[in-house]
């Protein structure tokens, strides 16, 4: 039984690993291009690329982080909050994501308090 399943598992791994690597590499291209155009102030175009990146690879914490920043820059606080939370969930030990999130929360909480009043 074991002798029969082992090749199957290996085969599955052989197929899955390059697929994952391909997905991450595609997503990374979108993330990097997004960074280059965000630096030129083209935030909505950058947003589209980071949205594409998380669509291709939903486990890509950096892409979620960048998306959070882009939404924040556009005043879309609910979307930014969700994106930052997703980034933290995927990479809880990343201090840079945590720092971005803390800075965002200062503004988000203030606007939320105001709306709730």
């Amino acid at each position, binding site marked *: 039984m074991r002798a029969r399943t082992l090749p199957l598992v290996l085969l599955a791994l052989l197929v899955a690993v390059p697929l994952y690597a391909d997905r991450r590499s595609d997503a*990374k291209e979108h993330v*990097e291009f997004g*960074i280059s155009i965000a630096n030129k102030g083209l935030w909505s175009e950058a947003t589209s690329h980071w949205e594409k990146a998380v669509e291709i690879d939903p486990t890509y914490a950096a892409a979620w982080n960048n998306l959070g920043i882009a939404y*924040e820059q556009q005043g879309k606080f609910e979307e930014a909050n969700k994106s930052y939370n997703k980034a933290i969930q995927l990479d809880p030990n*990343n201090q840079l994501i945590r*720092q*971005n999130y803390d800075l965002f929360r200062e503004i988000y909480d203030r606007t939320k308090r105001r709306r709730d009043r």
Partner: protein
Amino acid sequence: MTVRSAVAIASLTLAVAASAACVSFYDIAIETPIQAKLDTTPFQRVLVLGFVSGGSRDVDVNSETVRLLRSQLRTKSNLKVIDSDVVSLIDVVDKLKANVGTSAAAAAAPDTRIDAKADSKKDDLKSEKDLEAYDSIFADVAFWKKLGEEYQNPLIVTGTVYFTDINKSGIVERPQEVYDALGKRTVVSVRQWMDRKGYAIAPKFVFIDGRTGTQLYTDSYREETLYQATQNTPALSSYFELMDRLVPGFLNTLSSQKIKSTRTLLK
């Protein structure tokens, strides 16, 4: 150039290139837009009338607040700021109370232009609680409506401002440089007793519709600043330091603001 230095330059260049290629994060400046809390489109003009003020006698809080907010609104909002005398709301309330039984609003409104410096009750105001006794003025629809008619239906800004000196002595943590036997410098946190004094400000801004006399919005703030007891800081400079922190929030009530900050993009 010796072989040695050529190798050193080449390896340095490689190291720089490698580190540049490995950079996985970028700091970027962002401007977060914050929507205005109030829709000011029905108004073309704003009247910062005056405040119920109390606390420290070192600063004429009513006049200074009116002056500061008017100048900020002139440069940072689209509303035309009405120039009028600063009104002492404490005197207005006292007049209204004295005229109970007659048509209060009608009796008080013509006398609102009272020199704020002649604010006779100011010395009696010791605490924020004392200011609350004057809150009834903000709900006096007839008074504000009459005032609104007088100034062609502006948005009216008023409220209370409490500014006082504070003493907060206690244990504080502060960084201290220490050098070991080898002269190596480190910074450690030291806990020590400190006598500190400073000032606190607690304004409540009330926004009133000059067309109807009704309250549109209120916003309260509280800020304080502390110095070492030996430091002599004038009350007026502390007042402006504290107001500097509050003014962006105040302006954001009337117009959208952008908060500048930095975030880190990741690869």
